[in-house]
């Protein structure tokens, strides 16, 4: 088994490391230090939390989701000016400044997907679409980054494989259409 693993490792050796990319990333990570007195990462974090809590919370509605996206845009602009004090050793302010990027991305994905799904299902409740809609039952909203932009698409849920469908037995047979497993739905 170990032999096979070694063979497999050789077959897919790691690609060459792009030094330019490494240096560019390091530069980007260090930029907040150069700005020093820029936007305060803690204040931005608190505002992001409030935005998501107030507008993309448990009960959602189109107008609030759109307002959230406007605020997230503004936060992203400010994030480009985030500043950090102190040194590089164990500096939580710096860590937060860096974490804010992915946090903003995830927040935007959540808000845009919630806007896209015009129905209520599982943990997603839309005040303006209070019922589950059959056409959404076997669709996921998938977000991908294309050319630096987030692109949403509706994609069919994976079908339950034959052997699992057999295991499900009667429950599966009772359905005329193929049984699907809904991710994130209860």
């Amino acid at each position, binding site marked *: 088994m170990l032999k096979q693993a070694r063979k497999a490792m050789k077959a897919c050796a790691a690609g060459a490391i792009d030094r330019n990319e490494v240096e560019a990333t390091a530069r980007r990570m260090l930029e907040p230090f150069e700005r020093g*007195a*820029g*936007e*305060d*990462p*803690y*204040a*931005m974090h*608190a*505002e992001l939390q409030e935005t998501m809590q107030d507008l993309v919370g448990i009960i959602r509605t189109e107008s609030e989701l759109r307002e959230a996206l406007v605020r997230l845009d503004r936060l992203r602009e*400010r994030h480009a000016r985030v*500043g*950090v*004090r*102190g*040194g590089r*050793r*164990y*500096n*939580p*302010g*710096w860590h*937060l400044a860096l974490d804010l990027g992915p946090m903003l991305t995830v927040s935007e994905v959540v808000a845009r997907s919630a806007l896209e799904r015009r129905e209520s299902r599982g943990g997603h409740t839309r005040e303006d679409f209070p019922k589950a809609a059959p056409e959404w039952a076997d669709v996921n909203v998938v977000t991908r980054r294309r050319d630096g932009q987030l692109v949403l698409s509706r994609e069919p849920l994976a079908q339950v494989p034959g052997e699992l469908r057999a295991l499900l037995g009667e429950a599966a047979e009772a359905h005329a259409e193929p049984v699907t497993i809904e991710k994130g739905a209860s």
Partner: protein
Amino acid sequence: MSSESAGAERSAGPKAHDTEGPARDVTMRVWRGESRDSGGFTEYRVPVDEGMVVLDVLFRVQAMHAPDLAIRWNCKAGKCGSCGAEINGHPKLMCMTRLSSLPAGEPVTVAPMATFPVVRDLVTDVSFNYEKAKTIPPFAPRPRDPDGTYRMWQAEADRVQEFHKCIECFLCQDVCHVIRDHEENKEAFSGPRFFVRLAALEMHPLDTNDRLELIRRKQGLGSCNITKCCTEVCPESIKITDNAIIPLKERVVTEFYDPLAWAKRRILGR
């Protein structure tokens, strides 16, 4: 700080006053520095709310005054053992120490654990413990019974459960005077946390390893003079001294210092 970000800082503020009860300010005296010699205490005054723990207040210090204040923390529930520090001189978990349990109106002093080298501010390098852990032979269970199962008395199983509660916060290592003020003892003394670990293994009904010689010669059990400081600071309330250290001492004495057993061994040979 630009005027814009000063405004942003204010908008982070309202949370400080949005719960019931009068908001009050507390002075935090926080140790800051990158080494024992160069560091010192800095005072920060921050508003606090009812129910806050020391870790919450320090988050507020980070948000309002010291964005680079280094704190190691994870679970905020007293189970990960990351946020040990000395609060008003007492080794405690910052996430489990309510402000209301400290003298009202007085400054709260927070310092890093003294037994370990400082990484920065309240974060210490606890790798001493990881090195000591490597010196303990692991659990070595005896073979299963012929029917493929293990049998042990319930009382034996129960006895080691207490030791398994340890969250490895190392507050016992911090308070232990054998290593706290004596760097030179660290070589030959593993500390209360590892006496708990050794007791868990030695008392395990299935274990076959014999660690008594090691405990006597290398782990330094004899240097413990049972002042029970470790028991006092344990956030999991493990009776370290009574249930781990003293029984281990008894086992060592029985094995190596019992004159009758010694004579018997000499006569019968073993």
